[in-house]
């Protein structure tokens, strides 16, 4: 799908970020976990939009906000084929590449209820390892290893 088609689906964005090709169903979760509504900027969310490649997809537009490289990489955990476009004056000026990060800090809570990270003044911290069949996340503190989907589902 081209940028022109987004414009027809969802109101065009003057400047900010478009997160596209989010698997349908993950859009609201991304909105919440990355606290995209907290910037107090205009946010447009499209759910279950038709997509040639994906069947259906979610899409988020946030005005006047640009994601850090770290945030973009963390997005890759939810949307491995996601695209992040930076918009200025209604035009795409840059596409941020998404790569699964080596570590993720502070976004997810550890699924292990006996993990000390829940009660001490520390940020959650996972190291990420992509295996043949799965993406595994290991908590730095309790050292337990979880499938990515379990960690992502916790919060």
């Amino acid at each position: 799908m081209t940028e022109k088609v987004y414009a027809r689906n969802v109101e065009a964005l003057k400047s900010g970020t478009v997160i596209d090709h989010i698997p349908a169903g993950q859009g609201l979760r991304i909105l919440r976990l990355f606290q995209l509504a907290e910037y107090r900027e205009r946010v447009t969310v499209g759910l279950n939009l038709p997509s040639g490649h994906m069947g259906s997809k979610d899409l988020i537009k946030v005005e006047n906000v640009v994601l850090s490289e770290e945030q973009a990489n963390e997005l890759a955990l939810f949307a491995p084929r996601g695209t992040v476009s930076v918009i200025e004056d209604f035009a795409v000026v840059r596409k941020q590449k998404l790569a699964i990060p080596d570590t993720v800090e502070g976004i997810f809570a550890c699924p292990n209820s006996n993990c000390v990270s829940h009660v001490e003044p520390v940020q959650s911290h996972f190291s990420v390892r992509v295996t043949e069949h799965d993406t595994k996340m290991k908590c730095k503190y309790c050292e337990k290893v979880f499938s990515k989907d379990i960690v992502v589902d916790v919060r």
Partner: protein
Amino acid sequence: MPNPLYRKHIISIPDFTREELELVVQTAAQLKAAPRSDLLKDRLLATCFFEPSTRTRLSFETAVQRLGGNVIGFADGANTSAKKGETLADTVRIISSYTDAIIMRHPKEGAARVASEFSTVPIINGGDGANQHPSQTLLDLFTLQETQGRLDNLTVAFVGDLKYGRTVHSLAQALSLFGARFYFVGPEALAMPDYLCEELDERGISYSIAATIEEVIPHIDILYMTRVQRERFDEAEYKKIQGQFVLRADMLRSARPNMKILHPLPRVDEITTDVDATPHAYYFEQAKNGVYARQALLSLVLNETV
């Protein structure tokens, strides 16, 4: 050059290199052969046991005092500021300003790692929940070296609770640096976790699952027994597996002469007492080795050279 463990936190076995593990084992052997009473002279260590543990605490305290050091601390978190709601981070900040190192046990997994982020002195993990208990693994390795004369390419059977047994996980991880061969014997519900098996696969370690202790006995150098805890099963299930993973003296006839039986203790009924008198029983000596392994560890952490 200082030894590689000098002023390091001792949190988890996967943090160690093969050379560091060998260094602790060699140092423990030296201290067992020729005891030293000066290596912790004028040092003050804290033993902070937020969760009670008789053997680990007493063997650490013995190790400190035998090396000429002094100990302060508590044996139970119930009467400490933690009970009043103080974070572990704050507790550790304060205690690290009093002492040269902190030996701690805590019921939460990851507690020692958190402590290491707030302490100004080395943290020695004496057990954090179901996660790690590195000094146990070091004493196990020392005992393997002592009984087999090597750490490389040993054949080890782990029996009992392979799912929750942290000593099993840590020892398997440590031995995977030395090219081991493993047999896993235990109830299906308490099988070795997948992530650990994957780690072993990645390191090219071969292992197999066996149904009974008898079938592995002729093939192994070490039989590492652990307790299957009754509370992990409902009554009917427990009845079914009860007795299946119990070692008796008559099962040892086909054992190799060098085969030794280890157990992290406490034993309940998974090794019958008639095994104690066989030349294969080594679990009490293993527990004694805990003092030497801990002496070695503390000496290396608190002295540039030993």
